[in-house]
C-alpha cells in the first residue's frame, strides 16, 4: 500500500469571540499574575532565610575582599591586595594541595567501600535493618564526639590501632603526630564517618532497580560481575552522578575533624582551605579580607570541579 499525503480540513465556522482582544489580554495578564503571585508566596518563607543568611552574607563577604580590618581595627579599602595575596600565600597553596589530596584519598575509598557494603547488604535476608542502623551510627556521630572516639583509635599509647599493632609485634605508629600520617588519619576518620551515609543511599538506589532486567540477564548467562558492570553501574548512573558531585562539594569543605583533631598541624600537614579561612577570619581576627578572598577562591574551585564532573559524567 503506498503512502498518501494526509491533510487536514477546516472544520466548523469560526464563532464570535465574546471578549475583545484587549479584554482577553487584560484578563490573561491578571490570571497569570495571580498564579505567579501564588508561586512566589510559597517561595517567600524559604527566601527570607535564604536571603538573610546566605545571599547577604555572600554580598558582605565580597565587599570584605576589598578591605582590611573591620573587626578590631577600622576598615580600610585596599583594592585587590587581598586577591593578590591569596595567590602569593604559601599556606594557600599548601591548604589547597592538602584538600585535594584528601579528596582523592577519601572520595574513592568511601564510594568503593559503600558500594560494596550496599551490594552485600542487599543480599542479607535477615538482620538487614540492624546492620543498616549500625552502619549509620558513625554518620550520626557529632564531629566533637567522633574526634574523641577517634582519639581512642589513633592515640599513641592506648589507641586501639597501636594496641593491636603492639599485640601483633609491630612498632606503634604516631598517627596524628607524624606529618606524613596526620592527613591519612583524618581521611580514615572521615571515611569511617561517611561510609554509612553513602551505603544507605546506594542501597536505596539498588533496591529501586527493576528486578526483571536482572532476571533476564541471569537467563542470558551473565555472571555476578558482568551484571554489576553492565547493569547495575549504568542503571545507578543518576545516583552515582549525584553522589560524586555532592561528595566533591562536601569534602572540599573539610573542616570540623581537622579543627578538632589536629588544628591544621603538625607542620600544616592537615591545613585545609576551610580551616585556613576559619583561621584567618576568626583566629587572626584582622585578616577578614584575606579570608573572604580565600572563600571566594574556594567557591570558584568547588564550582569548577563540580562543573567538570557534571560534564564528564553527563557525556558518557
Amino acid at each position: 500500500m503506498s503512502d498518501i499525503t494526509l491533510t487536514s480540513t477546516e472544520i466548523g465556522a469560526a464563532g464570535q469571540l465574546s471578549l475583545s482582544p484587549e479584554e482577553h489580554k487584560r484578563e490573561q495578564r491578571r490570571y497569570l499574575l495571580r498564579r505567579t503571585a501564588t508561586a512566589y508566596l510559597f517561595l517567600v518563607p524559604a527566601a527570607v532565610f535564604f536571603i538573610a543568611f546566605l545571599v547577604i552574607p555572600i554580598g558582605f563577604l565580597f565587599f570584605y575582599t576589598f578591605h582590611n580590618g573591620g573587626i578590631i581595627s577600622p576598615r580600610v579599602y585596599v583594592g585587590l591586595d587581598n586577591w593578590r595575596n591569596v595567590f602569593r600565600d604559601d599556606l594557600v597553596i599548601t591548604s589547597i594541595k592538602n584538600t585535594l589530596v584528601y579528596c582523592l584519598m577519601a572520595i574513592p575509598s568511601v564510594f568503593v567501600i559503600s558500594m560494596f557494603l550496599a551490594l552485600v547488604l542487599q543480599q542479607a535476608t535477615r538482620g538487614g535493618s540492624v546492620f543498616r542502623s549500625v552502619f549509620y551510627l558513625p554518620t550520626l556521630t557529632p564531629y566533637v564526639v567522633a574526634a574523641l572516639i577517634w582519639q581512642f583509635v589513633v592515640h599513641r599509647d592506648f589507641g586501639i590501632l597501636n594496641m593491636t599493632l603492639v599485640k601483633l609485634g609491630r612498632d606503634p605508629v604516631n598517627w596524628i603526630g607524624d606529618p606524613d600520617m596526620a592527613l591519612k588519619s583524618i581521611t580514615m576518620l572521615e571515611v569511617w564517618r561517611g561510609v554509612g551515609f553513602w551505603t544507605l543511599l546506594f542501597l536505596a538506589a539498588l533496591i529501586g532497580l527493576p528486578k526483571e532486567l536482572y532476571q533476564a540477564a541471569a537467563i542470558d548467562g551473565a555472571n555476578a560481575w558482568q551484571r554489576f558492570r553492565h547493569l547495575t553501574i549504568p542503571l545507578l548512573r543518576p545516583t552515582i552522578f549525584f553522589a560524586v558531585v555532592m561528595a566533591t562539594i562536601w569534602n572540599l569543605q573539610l573542616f570540623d575533624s581537622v579543627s578538632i583533631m589536629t588544628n591544621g598541624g603538625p607542620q600544616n600537614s592537615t591545613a585545609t582551605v576551610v580551616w585556613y579561612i576559619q583561621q584567618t577570619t576568626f583566629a587572626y581576627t584582622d585578616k577578614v579580607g584575606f579570608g573572604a578572598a580565600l572563600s571566594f577562591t574556594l567557591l570558584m574551585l568547588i564550582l569548577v570541579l563540580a562543573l567538570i564532573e557534571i560534564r564528564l559524567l553527563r557525556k558518557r
Partner: protein
Amino acid sequence: MVETHFPELDATVPPPPRRGILSTASLYKLAIYIILIVAAFIAMVPFGYVVSTSLKSTMSLFAYPPDWLPDEPTLDNYRNLIDRYPFWRWLMNSAIVAGSVTLIKLVVDSMAGYAFAKMRFPGKEPLFLLVLISLMVPFAALLIPTFIIVRELGLLNTYWGLILPGLASPIGIFMMRQFIESLPSDLENAARLDGCSEFQIYRRVILPLIKPGLVVLGVFTFMTQWTSYLWPLVAATKPQMATLTVGARSLTSDFTQDWGLNSAAAVLSMLPMILVFIFLQRYFIAGSIAGALKE
C-alpha cells in the same frame, strides 16, 4: 499514615542450586554475613570503646596497657557530668535548636519545593539554578558575615541566633523538589478540579504523600543541627546557651583531659540521635528510595 512498607527491602536473590553437603548457597550466605559482621564491628568498636571508657573509674583509666572492658563498671563519670556541669541545660539547648530548625525547615522547604516542582511562574529556572549553586557555598566561609548580621540583630546568645542561620541551607529545597516532582501530576490536577486552592493542595495532598521524604529531610536536618559545632561555638558564648557539642568540647581544657568524663558526655549526647534514627530507620530507607535521586 501512608503505607511505606517496601517488601523489596527483604527480598533476596534466589540462591544457586545445592551442591554437596555444604551447598554453595549456604557458603555464599556465610560470606555475606561475615562481611557484614566485620563491617559492623569496625563501625561499632570505637563507639564501644567510648562506652567502655565512660564506665571506667578514674584509677583504671591509667592502666597500661589499657583494658578493653572496665574491671568494675561505675557510673561515676555520668554522675560527675550531671552534678558538676549544666548537662541537662546543654541537652535542652541542643533539643530546642535542632528541633526548631527541623520543624521550620520541613515547612518552609516543602513549600518552596512544591513551587519549584509543580508550579509555573516566570523566574523559576534561574531561581532554582541559584539554589543549586548555593549548595556549593562553604558555611565556614560565611561565618564572619553571619556573625555580624546576627550580632546586629541583637541575637547573640539567644535561641533565635542559633536557629536562624541554620534555616538558610538550600539542600532541603532541592530534596523536597526531587520528592514532590516524582508525585504524579494528575493528583494535584484532581485536587485542583475538586476545588482546592494551591495551599490546600499542598496541605492535604502533597504533604501527606511526601511523608517519607519529610522523614529523610527531618532526620538529615536534625542530625546536622545536633552535630553542629562551629556556629554554636561562636554564637553562644555564655555557658547557659551552650549546646551539647560545645559543652562536651568545653570539658577538655588545655591542661587536662578527663577521658572518662568526656566519654560519658559523648555517650549521652549521641543517645537521642541514635534513638531517633532507630525509630525512623525504616521510613528513612523508604524515603530515600521514593526520592531516588534523579538528575
